[in-house]
């Protein structure tokens, strides 16, 4: 059996886990390539007009995988990975949406329900239905989950040591990590980039914003480098937090970054039509005002012009630098 993994949405967060999972079960996996304009076109053609860009891109990757010889495309229904919080409705309905919009997917869809209380999926309960889909025994699937979550914990430890997802992924695969050499610049800045993994690490949508910032002499921190515990702590001031797992992480991380004196400014990268971000963005604006820190929102979509991003990022770093190192 050959399973296709779309390189989109939570792929950037959970890929090491699923790779280890399928490897432990001796199932071959194929990952779709990096997002290209062609993939985006396919996605746009097969999804409803108003839906957010990440879902359109996901759709494109599914189409891409269906054109290969994979037996099934793996689209887990991510329901919950922590207590009382769920994913955005589009994640909950993702397999249904894909089944009925992408022609040819019916019958080649692997859609287990993921309902856990731990992010590492170590406490996954529903082995049997997934085992049945894969033609394995429940015990094998259970063991594979254990191996996978261990591997994923390693991945997370890399994050917490200050690596971003690309670097952690490379470190995990024991690949030569292109050592990042900061350009010689006395006036260094630290900028927090806040956004969902599928917007920042997809180089088509996010246009390599992290690399761009580094070239301008800024160190970049992201939410996955923070400890989950400290993020949750920051949210205790709220009587009620947002209902979505990752939005909460970003909100908590937002507090953390704004309160951290080392951080000079923050950029929120959001996709056109993102529902949770429409609320998160406004909350972050309020926090930014409270802390008196520079904050910028960059809204990305399926367009490919990079000039707007470069211009705004340059202007933002220039502004921060002038604020931090005033010229007398």
């Amino acid at each position: 059996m050959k399973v296709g993994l779309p390189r989109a949405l939570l792929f950037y967060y959970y890929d090491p886990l699923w790779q280890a999972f399928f490897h432990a079960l001796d199932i071959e996996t194929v990952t779709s390539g990096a997002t290209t304009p062609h993939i985006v076109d396919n996605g746009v053609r097969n999804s409803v007009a108003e839906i957010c860009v990440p879902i359109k891109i996901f759709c494109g990757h599914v189409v891409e995988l269906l054109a290969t010889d994979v037996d099934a495309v793996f689209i887990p229904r991510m329901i919950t990975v922590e207590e009382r919080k769920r994913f955005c409705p589009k994640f909950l309905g993702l397999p249904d949406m894909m089944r009925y919009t992408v022609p040819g997917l019916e019958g080649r869809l692997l859609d287990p329900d993921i309902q856990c209380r731990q992010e590492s999926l170590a406490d996954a309960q529903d082995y049997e239905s997934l085992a049945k889909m894969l033609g394995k025994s429940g015990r094998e699937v259970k063991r594979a989950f254990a191996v996978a979550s261990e591997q994923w914990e390693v991945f997370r430890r890399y994050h917490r040591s200050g690596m971003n997802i690309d670097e952690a992924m490379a470190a995990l695969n024991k690949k030569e990590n292109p050592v990042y050499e900061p350009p010689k610049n006395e006036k260094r800045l630290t900028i927090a980039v806040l956004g969902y993994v599928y917007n920042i690490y997809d180089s088509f949508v996010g246009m390599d914003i992290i690399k761009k910032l580094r070239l301008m002499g800024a160190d970049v921190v992201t939410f996955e480098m923070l400890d989950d515990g400290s993020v949750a702590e920051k949210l205790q001031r709220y009587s009620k937090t947002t209902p979505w797992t990752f939005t909460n992480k970003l909100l908590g991380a937002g507090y953390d970054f704004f309160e951290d004196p080392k951080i000079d400014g923050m950029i929120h990268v959001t996709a056109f039509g993102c529902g949770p971000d429409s609320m998160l963005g406004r909350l972050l604006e309020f926090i930014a005002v409270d802390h008196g820190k520079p904050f910028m929102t960059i809204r990305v979509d399926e367009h490919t012009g990079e000039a707007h991003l470069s211009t705004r990022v340059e202007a933002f770093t220039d502004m921060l630098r002038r604020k931090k190192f005033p010229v007398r």
Partner: protein
Amino acid sequence: MKVTFPYMGPVLAYKKLLEAVGHEVIMPQKPTQGTFDLATKYSPEFLCFPFKCLMGTYIEALEAGAEAIVTTGGDDNCRAGFYAEVHRRILASLGYNVQFFVIESLFKHPRDFIGSIRDLKGKYSWWHALGTIHFCYDLIAAMDRIQERIRILRAHEKNKGDFTRAWRDIEELFDTCYDRQDVRETEKKAWKILHSVPVELWDPKQAMRIGIVGEIYVTMEGHANQEIEETLAAMGVEVVNSQYVSHWLKQRLQILPWRKSHMEKIIAKAKPYLKLDLGGHEQENIAHMIDYWEKGLDGVIHLMPFACMPELVTQSIIPRISKDLGMPIVSLALDEQRGTANIQTRLEAFLDLAMGKKIRRAGVPGLAAR
């Protein structure tokens, strides 16, 4: 305390409820262009349309002197559950000093639910509060029953606007109710008024009947859907609406486990298309679409606010449902843009299609000639 609440559904009943426990009510005004202008000015651009409508009505009510806002919460993963938190912050940033009473789900957060009712009822007894809730539920249910009938009859009215006027009179009558006995008597009077409105004779077999499903706010509120029901009635189309506050309350407050609501009976029809409840009304909407088709309705209009998270999933699945059933379904996204030509054109095209389908489906010869 001077309180206000969102303009949604039977506002009269909310007023009664709050007045009965000693609050002064600042009635929210039906949103107008001015409200939408205010709303879009102070709301985040990509937040959904109902949020913006509430934003506008809140500001107008606060300007009229309101000091507190009563609204619902919820922790489903639709944005609506988190509205109050964002409204609160935005209003505070605008300099309004306002208290929020957020009523949470009875079963998921019983303590919060009871706490907010206790805060609202103040010095009045629990017995009085419960009795008032029961009375208001009856009031809402009675008004919903009458509206349900108007939606059918309006397509056949002799003089345009008669039913709208009749409904206004009926609302005024209901405003004079103070207990459940009053509601029963007023409902009888209301039916009499309704039956006295002159209508054309019509053949039920030939009349077009269209179902409306969708997100609850834009489906219920005429100002949010550009009075789609009146537009349809003017074209001679009977309307069956899926969203009523009384149905919603019945589902949320259903205590007797052996009693099954209509929804629980038909929800299974949606499962093959959508496995899970996503936190809005998407499973219900799909179930209604299938149920309406089985009941012989001629088509369904699906309404949603622009970029509504749960309804976008429904919208994605609609082409398939339409194909499987052979039913005409049109999905309209609504926002603060007030141009009418788009909806008018799409409705006309949709009704032409549905009419063709009806003729073929029923094989009624008299229809073909029309």
